[in-house]
Structures are given as C-alpha cells and as structure tokens.
C-alpha cells in the first residue's frame, strides 16, 4: 500500500512511524479504511466462490464433479454434492457476503476513508477506537474460517439462523453436537461467536463516525454542506448504533441456548429428537425472528444507504451538474432510516405472527418505497441536461440507479401481504435481495472504488479494463439474477438443493442452467477487476490531487493524503455540488473557493476521462 507521508506535508505533527504502526496497527483513518477494503475484497472472493458452488448444484443437480469429493470430503461422495454441503454453502455465502464483505466495505472502508476527508477533519474523533474496530474483525475472520473445518462443518441453518434448527444442541456434557442439522452444532457456535465480534467492531465504528461528523467538521462545513456520502454514512452509523445491540443480545441468547441449556428460543415441552429435551422453562421460537429482523431489516438499509450516498457524489461530479434536490435527498435517507425501524415484520408475514400485525407492517413497508422513489427521480433529474462523462465510476453509478429501480419495485410485491403469501421464500425474494444487495450495492462499491482510488493511492486505475469489467459484470449479473424473478413467479422455493425433486419445477431447469452459466462468467469476470486493482496500486499513472475536477474537500488534499490529511485546516464556503455554476470560469467550484473567486484553487491537473 502506498499511503505515504510526503516530507513537506504534516511531517512536523506526525513523526515517521515504524512500518508496523504505519501500515498494520495504524491509527490513520485512511489506512484503516484501506485495510477494511482489502479484507472485504478477499472475503468477496470467498463469498463468490461459495456462490459459484451453489450455482453449480442448482444448474446441474445430478452432475458428478470429480473435484468436489476432494474439497468437500465425505459429504460429497462420488463428486455429487451432498445436501448438507449445499446447505452449508448457501448459509455461508450469505453470511460471508453480508457480514464480511458488504458491511465492512461500505461502513468500514468508505466510512473510514471518506468521513474525515470530506468534512475537513485531520482524522477520526477516536483514532485508537478506530484501530480497535478493525482489529476486532480479525477474531471474527479467524473464527469464521476455522468454522469450515469444525466437526459437522460450518453453519448450515441459513444466515437467518432460525431456531429451533439453529439453536438446538445436545444437553450439556454430551458435546455441542446438534441433533437437528449437521453444521448447527460446532459450526453454528463458531458462527455466533464470529458475528458477535463483527457486531462489536461495527458498534465501535459507528460511535466513532457519529462523534466525528457531529464534532469535527471544519470551519464553514455546515450539516447541509456535507456531501451525500457523509450524510448517508452518518445516518447509517445511527442505524447501526441503535439496531446492532439488539442483534448482539440475540446472538448471546442463542449462544446460551446452545451451550448452557437455556431455552430463550425453545418452546416448553419436548421436541422430537431422540432423548433430547428442552431445559427448564420454555421460550418463544418467534422471539428470535423478531430480534433478528429488528436488526437485520435496518441492516438492509445499512447495506445500501452508503452506496446511495457515494453514487450521488459520483453522478453529480460526472454530470457536471449540482445534485438535483439535495435536501429532498437528505430527507429521503432520513425517511428510509426512520421507516426502516418499523418494517421488520414484513419478513415474518407467513411466520405465524398474528396476521393483524402483518397488515400494519405491510402499510409501513409499502410506504418505504416512497423515499426510494424520490431518490431515483432526483438522480434522473441530476443526469437530465447534464454533460455526462461516461467513465468507469460513472457507468457503475448509472448501473446502480438502473438496477436499484428493479430492486426497489420488486420489493412492493413482497410488501403486499396477499401476494407475499404466494411468493414468500421463493426465488422472487432471492431476485429482489440480490438486485438490492448485489446489483445496487456492489455497483455502488465499484463506483466508489474506481472514483476514490486516485485519492487512496495517488494513482489511476486502468480505464479500458475498468470498462471491460463493467460491461461483463453488468450483462452477466443480469443474466444470473433477472431470471430469478421468473423462477419465483413459477413457484420455485429458495434454499432447496434439488429442484428436480418437484414436478412443477422441472420445466424451469433450462433457466437454472442459464443462470449458472452467467454466474460463472460473472465470477471469473471479477479477476479483471482484481488485476486492475492490484496493478494500479503500484503501477497506475499518477493522478494528482483532483483528477475528476470534483468539488468536495478530499480532492483539495494531496493524493494520497498524508497522516493529518490537509496541509492547513480547510475552510468551506459553499455546498459540495457547485458544478457548471455561472459564477465560475471552469465547470467546478471546490467547496474551499471563497465567494467572489471564480477559479478553482489548487493545482491544475489534466482530467482523466
């Protein structure tokens, strides 16, 4: 990594640090952000590999793949994937992607990197806490990786880990095996422990972000002069701070159910597993679902709001036009976050929860489409009559908008309770969640990486290969996820290892096969991105301070910024989106340009389009 400290800048405040303090146990928000980014990218490869194995099974359920028994062991004897193996794969794919890729990339990587730079602060409010928040991820990384080798395999009860399948283990003293499902013994215990560490890490991060944004904005940086990235990360941090404790508690309760014979989530009486019996008392199975979704529904917004913010910045910059409706955009994010706390029940319409509650949750859920629609219209308004530079970050941002429309609209089907009776837990929901989490968020992450890479490393990524990567990803990912809508409409259940078991699913097998082929194209296409990323870190062309002629504060700092970020504390005079202002001679006016001046301050550098 080439986050280095130039001699002239900031060196007097920040003496040269040892390699270990500078790159490993760093307190510099940028280094921590980049650490989160690379960890996230590595786990993205793991999560992607798990997804490809899932698609391998669904595309060709009866195929014999010679290497499978070698990598999967006895569970896949003869090269045919065993059901337990498949169950582990979809469980761990989701767990890895959500807790080790998307959340760390959005809040960990971009939150850390962008917040101080965009509000003109030298660092986070609590740099040591910040370092801890990254290093608390390492026990989580280690435990989750070890769990693949645990007795019975890694967790296999779905990323939702519903009791009782996930929460039962044998009575104390008989080993932590599960009578209900392979992988819900030791694998599940390790899964719970790992997630507790992730939760603690995120909580430390979110407290830090909130404090930094409230207290450390530079002179002139009012709340309504903050770029949308900061706004979205701010709201996200608040969501995390309020929702995560609930999940953490629920994880502890399930851990106790599994190891100490408590019965928070186990009903009184006996369950049908040999000599197994519930401990004293008796709890509620549905309680877990309430606690889990009370966090995990806001988490859905945690996993998309930062991408929305970043995409707003990218689209405004490359449309050379102010963000359309800045304040409505801020209010929409706040609205999504607020409503996000009262819609968790829509995951439970068919769960046995009182259906009268379902009616209330439905109305709240349907209304959450409103702020999302307002955001979409404002992005379109930003593009309209702009002067679009269609480079890699912009293309990815436009893909975000285009795909978010699909993900947003398909959500209305599930929100409508009677329609949900039919499509609940079908591939329609799998399509919906991937359009939000993959097609939207991941395109947003790509846009963010291509856009801020020059600031992170002082070098540009390769534009040509960036576009090739974009085109492959855009086409192939639609090939994987779009047909899932059709499968869902035809009744295809999710989480089944072998669709050919059902007569009404047999005609759908050609679609499954097509999706699997697209998935492999998509998966292998990502190596272009990885190669581009790692090559450009070392050998990309130098970028200068402001390659995109962008307005927000981070572009006035050197690339990469030194420890302490700015040569002198910046002063902000205007909003972040003053593009093509009639006031200016150029088509941009950085936030630091004082009133009356017409030229952007700072070094002039050629724009890389």
């Amino acid at each position, binding site marked *: 990594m080439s986050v280095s400290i130039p001699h002239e800048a900031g060196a007097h405040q920040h003496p040269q640090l040892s390699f270990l303090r500078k790159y490993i146990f760093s307190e510099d928000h940028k280094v921590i952000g980049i650490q989160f980014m690379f960890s996230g990218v590595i786990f993205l490869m793991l999560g992607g590999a798990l997804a490809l194995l899932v698609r391998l099974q669904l595309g060709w359920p009866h195929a014999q793949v010679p290497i499978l028994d070698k990598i999967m062991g006895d569970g896949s004897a003869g090269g045919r994937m065993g*059901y337990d193996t498949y169950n582990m794969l979809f469980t761990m794919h989701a767990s890895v992607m959500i807790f080790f890729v998307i959340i760390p990339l959005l809040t960990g990587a971009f939150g850390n990197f962008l917040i101080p730079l965009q509000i003109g602060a030298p660092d986070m409010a609590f740099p040591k806490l910040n370092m801890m928040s990254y290093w608390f991820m390492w026990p989580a990384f280690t435990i989750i990786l070890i769990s693949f080798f645990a007795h019975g395999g890694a967790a296999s009860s779905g990323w939702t880990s*519903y009791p*009782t*399948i996930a929460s*039962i283990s044998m009575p104390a003293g008989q080993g932590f095996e599960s009578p209900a499902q392979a992988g819900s013994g030791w694998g599940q215990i390790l899964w719970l422990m790992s997630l507790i560490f992730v939760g603690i890490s995120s909580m430390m991060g979110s407290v830090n972000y909130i404090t930094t944004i409230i207290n450390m904005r530079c002179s002139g940086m009012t709340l309504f002069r903050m770029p949308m990235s900061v706004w979205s990360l701010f709201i996200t941090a608040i969501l995390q701070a309020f929702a995560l404790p609930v999940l953490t508690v629920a994880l502890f309760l399930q851990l106790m159910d599994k190891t100490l014979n408590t019965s928070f989530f186990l*009903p009184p009486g006996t*369950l*049908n597993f040999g000599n197994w019996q519930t401990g004293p008392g008796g709890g509620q*199975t549905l309680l877990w679902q309430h606690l889990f979704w009370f966090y995990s529904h806001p988490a859905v917004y945690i996993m998309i709001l930062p991408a929305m913010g970043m995409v707003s910045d990218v689209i405004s910059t490359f449309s*050379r*036009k*102010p963000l359309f*409706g*800045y304040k409505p955009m801020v209010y929409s994010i706040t609205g999504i976050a607020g409503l996000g706390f009262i819609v968790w029940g829509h995951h439970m319409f*068919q*769960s*046995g929860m009182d259906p*009268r509650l*379902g*009616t209330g949750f*439905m109305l709240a859920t349907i*209304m959450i489409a*409103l702020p999302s*629609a*307002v955001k979409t*219209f404002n992005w*379109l*308004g930003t*593009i309209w009559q*702009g002067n*679009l*530079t*269609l480079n890699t970050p912009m293309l990815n941002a436009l893909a975000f908008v*285009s795909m978010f*429309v699909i993900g947003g609209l398909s959500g209305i089907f599930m929100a*409508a*309770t*009677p*329609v949900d*009776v*039919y499509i*609940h*837990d*079908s591939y329609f929901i799998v399509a919906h969640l991937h359009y939000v989490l993959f097609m939207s968020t991941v395109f947003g992450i790509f846009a963010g990486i291509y856009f801020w890479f020059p600031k992170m490393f002082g070098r540009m990524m390769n534009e040509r290969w960036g576009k090739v990567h974009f085109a492959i990803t*855009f086409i192939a990912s639609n090939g994987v996820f779009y*047909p899932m*809508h*059709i499968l869902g409409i*035809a*009744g295809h*259940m999710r989480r089944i*290892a072998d669709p050919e*078991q*059902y*007569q*009404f699913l047999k*005609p759908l097998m050609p679609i499954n096969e097509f999706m699997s082929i697209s998935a492999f194209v998509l998966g292998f296409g990502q190596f272009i991105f990885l190669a581009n990323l790692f090559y450009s870190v070392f050998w990309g062309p130098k970028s200068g301070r402001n390659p995109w002629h962008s307005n927000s504060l981070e572009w006035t700092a050197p690339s990469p910024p030194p420890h302490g970020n700015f040569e002198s504390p910046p002063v902000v005079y205007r909003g972040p989106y003053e*593009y*093509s202002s009639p006031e200016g001679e150029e*088509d941009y006016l950085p936030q630091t340009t004082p009133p009356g001046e017409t030229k952007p301050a700072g070094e002039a550098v050629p724009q890389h389009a």
Partner: protein
Amino acid sequence: MQKYWSVLFGAVITAAVGLFVVAPFMGWWLPRNVSSFGGDVDLLFYLILGITGFFFVLTEAILVYGIWKFSSDPTRKATYTHGNHKLEVLWTIVPAGILVMIGIVQVRTWENIKYQSRMPRPGANTQQIEVVARQWEWRIRYPSPKRMASWRSDPRLAQDFGAVPHQDDVHVPNELHVWRHQKGEEPQKVLVHLKTRDVLHSMKLVNLRLMQDAVPGKTIPVWFMVEEYNTSLHPETGRWVDGFDPKTGHWNQKDYVWELACAEFCGTRHTAMKGKLFVHKNRDDFLEWLKWAEAEDHRRTPAVPSTEP
C-alpha cells in the same frame, strides 16, 4: 462515442422486459390456480405487476435516453440547477397516492386468507385435518369415518379435533386429501391444524397460492377451499390417484398434480420434504378413499396408533 453506452443499458432493460413477455408462453409462469382465494392473489399480483412495470419502463427509458442525449460534449455546459420544488412535490405526492392505494387494496384479501376471524368454524360442514410437520415428512391425521359421522349428528363434537387425537383417527404421510367445493353450492372449506414436532417448516401449496410456517410449540390454523378436483379411482389399479383431468377424463401429470412443498429451511433433506394434494370430486368420493386409507392405516400400525401431538 460515449453515448453508445446507453445502448448497453437499453439492451439489458429490453431483454428484461422481453423475458416477462415470453415467460408465460414458455410455461414459466404462475402455476394453475385451484383455490377460492387464489384468483384474488393473482389479481393483486397482476395489479402490482402492471403498476411497477409501467414505472420500470418509464424510469429506465428516461435513464437510457438521458445517457444518450446528455453524454459528454465539450461545446456544451450542463444546466446549473439545484432542483425544482414543484417537481419534488409532484413526484412525492403521486407515488405516495399510488402506494397508499396499493396498500389498501391488499387488506381484504389478506384478512380473508389469514385472519383468525375468517377461519371456518369446526362443525359438520368443515373438513378438518391435522398436519404435523417433522424432519422430513408431513404427518397428516384425518378423522375416522366414524368420527366424521358423529359430527353430523352433533356438530359440537367437531370442536376438539385439533387438540384431541382419537385412537381410530387415520394417519397418512405426505398425502393431503380433501374434497372439492362446487361453485354455487354450500362452501366446503378445509381447516388445517398446522403443527411441527421439531424445527420450523412451512406448508406451501403453489396451486392454492398458500403458504404458512409451522412453529414449534404452536398450532396454527390454516384454511382453504379448492374449486377443482384432480383425484379419481384409477380403473386399472383400483386406487385413488391424482393427476386426473375431469374435462378430458384422462390422467394429466402436468396440470393436475398439485404438490405440497416445505418452504422453510428444515435441515438436510429439506429439499425432499414434499407431499401432494389430492382433491376428490365430492364428500362421498373422499369417504370412499378414507375408508380405504383407514384399512391401510390399521394394517400398517395394528396395535398402537400414534397419539402424539
């Protein structure tokens, strides 16, 4: 040249719309509906599909056109505007109205399918079945023909079916037998007492547009009413077989086999936890089958019938 990226966006969106147009013709669409409320569910589905489809095409068309029309031109400067208050109000109020409307029209159907108050009361005219899910099969309990007859003489005796199994109740795994409701006649509703003995399961019947989770420690009532039948006495085997097409009088595996799936992940063999729905033409046919099943059940488990919940 940059503007040609809009073609990529346009092509992908066109393909997406195209798939929805061809899918029904390829047989990749909603399975045949046979339940009384399934038509309402389908109608609401098509309503949402129409509205979302319209806005999907509208927004994507604006996006694709915008990419084409406004792509980089060094001679032009972007319009400097921070927004438009009237537009913001317009595109907040209009979607809000549509969304509220979508929400309100759902309520009646939802109430009808799931509310406790809409469940058929146990009585002489209600078919009662207990479905107990377990890893990985559906244990289904029917009242014996004798018990059913007693309900006719005293409907109050039907109250305790869900809670109290009788010695002579009939147990059949993975086969859900009911009889048809003929339109215009007295409703022949089915009341299912849904339970599970181990983990979460979910009873999903795509042809009925019905799904309900089974939760350990709870008994959840589920109702439906089937308006077509698919089961008849097979002339060659002498057994009651599904897949019967009443219109043609032939066996049609494609449209007249109605499967029961587990739709909530329940462990290793979740994917194989399936059953079938057998709908008899009328009560008499059902009773014929039930007598046969009773004999089979006694033959299988002569001494100790299961009395577990």
